[in-house]
């Protein structure tokens, strides 16, 4: 760590040294680092699985790996990326670091619980890695019964136990955030002065707390069925294969909002800072987060339009799915409107934020196709779906995550990253991403089913394009990994507020002291009070950066 570097001031990084001081820390900022390291590890692992998948799909024949291997690759790719990278990514790293600071608190309400949740996450990860090492699991990350409960002869039980354990880490993080946001706000920090990042994390926490337990019990039932031969989902006994899907998607659809809501929170911060304006329609953006969290729980059946679910239920789920599109649209429109008459600078975090809006827009709009009953029949379980959710999860959540990491990197480390490289990387990621996943929309509408190890030759051209894009995308991810590590030692020392941004986190030093603030701040203004209606402001404008 950069702890050995100047400034000599005591802050959270240099207050104590040694592995042990990190492993028993209850400081939310240090726990954020623990999470950062572990999710980066899982991101790399999940990425490697994806590399092999894309290589296999270069040719129509299943020639690089065996069918069984390929099935394990996409299963483990999904499991690690969803449960061990995307879901904890922004909440557990940026949320952990920023939620207390942004509301002017010294720490989360339950610091030891916070540390415990990291250990729980690690334990769950260990189980899943053990399953992967022991030979893997081949059910897909969705674990549909009866394949997962009876037919698969891979390490299903070990994997689902790992995910079950990790679920508790999510629950405890969400619980911690909710209590903290309710009870620990600094004097003057009213609900409508909260940064939109906090609103987004509050909404996310609701899903953590109310959704995750359902996944937990569902996976327990699958594990019980495998280990003790209980007959919960067994069709031979008259078990209902669709029941599992209801239980699974009750969590796993809202889980998509777990990934995207925090990214939306990050983007709100970035857009405000780099256009020097309060987010247009702050209240609407704030309530849109809550609306997404709540309505997001009512739409899960749109994963099941062709599953044998009743036509009547499908209609209910379809109309509710369209409703959840509205608050997302409201957010996109408000971000765009924020640029109007702003003072826009093109720093790397802003590039990620603008990229996020573009990719999220495509991801969201293609969701309309899937919510439309007549079209979903055709595109369900094809690459159209794959492309759609990668636009949301990778184009949306990962872009938001990278933008946030860059934005708060000076705060977390006290050092700045190399801006030129960062902008280049942002550009490469954007281009590589589109090249990887846009062809998959076409593949999907043409009818290429997902989870295919070998495919008919007419799909090859688009698959080659996708693989080529993936190699660009991969490069775009490796560059930040290198220069961010480089910057820990060689980056320029950042002041308390390198972006000249609003927000309590920029009022404390970089890196912050262990208790975050020397004295508890008193909040007297709205969020993003860059200027009032006359243009009066108390923070100077940063000079435009060289393009």
């Amino acid at each position, binding site marked *: 760590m950069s702890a050995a570097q100047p400034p000599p001031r005591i802050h959270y990084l240099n207050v104590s040294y040694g592995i042990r001081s990190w492993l028993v820390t209850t400081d939310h900022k240090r726990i954020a680092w623990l999470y950062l390291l572990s999710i980066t590890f899982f991101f790399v692992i999940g990425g490697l699985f994806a590399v092999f998948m894309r290589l296999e799909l270069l040719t129509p024949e299943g020639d690089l790996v065996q*069918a069984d291997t390929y*099935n394990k690759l996409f299963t483990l790719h999904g499991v690690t990326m969803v449960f061990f990278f995307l879901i904890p990514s922004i909440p557990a790293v940026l949320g952990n670091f920023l939620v207390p600071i942004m509301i002017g608190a010294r720490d989360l309400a339950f610091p030891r619980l916070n540390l415990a949740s990291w250990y729980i996450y690690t334990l769950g990860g260990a189980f899943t890695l053990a399953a992967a090492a022991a030979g893997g699991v081949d059910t*897909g990350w969705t674990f*549909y019964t*009866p*394949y997962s409960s009876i*037919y698969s002869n891979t390490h299903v039980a070990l994997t689902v136990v790992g995910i079950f354990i990790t679920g508790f880490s999510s629950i405890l993080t969400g619980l911690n955030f909710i209590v903290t946001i309710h009870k620990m706000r600094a004097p003057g920090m009213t609900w409508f002065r909260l940064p939109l990042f906090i609103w987004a994390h509050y909404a996310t926490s609701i899903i953590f707390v109310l959704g995750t337990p359902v996944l937990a019990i569902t996976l327990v039932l699958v594990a019980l069925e495998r280990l003790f031969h209980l007959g919960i989902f067994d*069709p031979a006994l008259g078990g209902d294969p669709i029941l599992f899907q209801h239980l699974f998607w009750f969590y796993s659809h809202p889980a998509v909002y777990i990934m995207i809501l925090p990214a939306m929170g990050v983007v709100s911060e970035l857009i405000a800072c780099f256009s*020097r*304006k*309060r987010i*247009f*329609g*702050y209240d609407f953006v704030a309530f849109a987060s809550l609306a997404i969290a709540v309505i997001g729980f009512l739409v899960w059946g749109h994963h099941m339009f062709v*599953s044998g679910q009743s*036509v009547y239920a499908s209609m209910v789920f*379809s*109309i509710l799915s*369209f409703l959840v*599109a*509205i608050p997302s*649209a*409201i957010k996109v*429109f*408000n971000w765009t409107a924020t*640029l*109007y008459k*702003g*003072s*826009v*600078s093109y720093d790397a975090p802003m590039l990620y934020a*603008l990229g996020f*809006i573009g990719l999220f*827009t495509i991801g969201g*709009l293609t969701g*309309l*196709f899937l919510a*439309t*009953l*007549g*079209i979903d*029949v*055709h595109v369900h*379980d094809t690459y159209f779906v794959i492309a759609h959710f990668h636009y949301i999860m990778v184009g949306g959540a990962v872009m938001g995550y990278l933008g946030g990491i860059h934005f708060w990197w000076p705060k977390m480390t006290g050092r700045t990253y190399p801006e030129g490289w960062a902008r280049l990387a942002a550009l490469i990621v954007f281009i590589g991403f589109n090249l990887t996943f846009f062809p998959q929309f076409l593949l999907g509408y*043409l*009818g290429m*089913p*997902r989870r295919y*190890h*070998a495919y*008919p030759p*007419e799909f090859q*051209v*688009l698959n080659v394009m996708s693989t080529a894009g993936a190699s660009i995308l991969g490069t775009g991810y490796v560059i930040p990994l290198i220069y961010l590590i480089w910057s820990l030692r060689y980056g320029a020392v950042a002041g308390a507020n390198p972006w000249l941004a609003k927000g309590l986190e920029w009022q404390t030093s970089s890196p912050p002291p262990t208790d975050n603030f020397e004295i508890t701040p008193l909040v007297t203004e709205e969020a993003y009070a860059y*200027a009032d*209606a*006359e*243009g009066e402001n108390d923070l100077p404008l940063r*000079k*435009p950066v060289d393009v």
Partner: protein
Amino acid sequence: MWQNLPLLPEQASTIAPRVDALFVFVLGVAVFFAGLIFVSIVYLAVKYRRRADAAAPKLIAGSLALELLWTVIPFGLTMVMFVWGALLFVEIQNPPADALEIIAVGKQWMWKMQHPDGHQEINELHVPIGRRIKLTMTSEDVIHSFFVPAFRIKMDVLPGRYTTTWFEATRPGRYRLFCAEFCGTQHSGMIGSVTVLELSEFESWLSGRAVGTSTAKMGESLFQRLGCASCHRPDGAVPAPSLVGLFGSKVALEGGRTVVADEGYIRESIIDPRAKIVAGYQPVMPTYRGLISEDGILQIIAYLKSAEQGKGEAARQ
């Protein structure tokens, strides 16, 4: 038939052009809004880029009128999509009554098809053009999904349950049939084809094959062999209710409920006879679980549905 880079799959069923029309509508809306957002972002980001001598921008809190505008318009558009999509969906989901009934059984990793006249095919399905085809499907093991992109139809195939879908092919040709629900190691090998033939070609295709016994006939012989007829006599005398004209009728159950005798009910009555007891009868029927295959159950259902049985009843009355 396949070019190197087609952008739309072939349209080979009556439903396909209608799905595509809806697709084009949603695509139009999506392209419009995506374009609106992209152009706005680029335009605003360039126009209001930070300049060296810039003053701080003024606060613009928001606008209720705008918020309402961009809430109501997307809402209206999505409701159009919903209604249009739902109407189409109902049609896709409800097979017409006059359809030719074909049985499809999925198992790891193949499709077994059975024509009403008893012809069986593996991973292939030959159908005549311009004829409505109803598929009644079940699985012997895990969940599969019957997907023919050229027809724009897809339906999951479940163990222990029946699902149905239908299509009417409009263009002769050979179209891919995929399994769309992950079903294990050879999931990607569970590919078949649907061959659409002109009626005359279909007839000659049929005649070119060994004459099979019709599904209903097979069901009838199974019905005799398993001894069903010894209890289920046409007069409905105790111990068992008559099965004549049963299919599609309403059955009064013990406890005052009624149930429509569809495929699912008949299957349940064979596998799990005491789940629903017909009013006035004792629960004495043993289960046939393990004694009869999924194919066999479907054959018996075909027999119970068949015209011969119905006619027989009419003659008796």
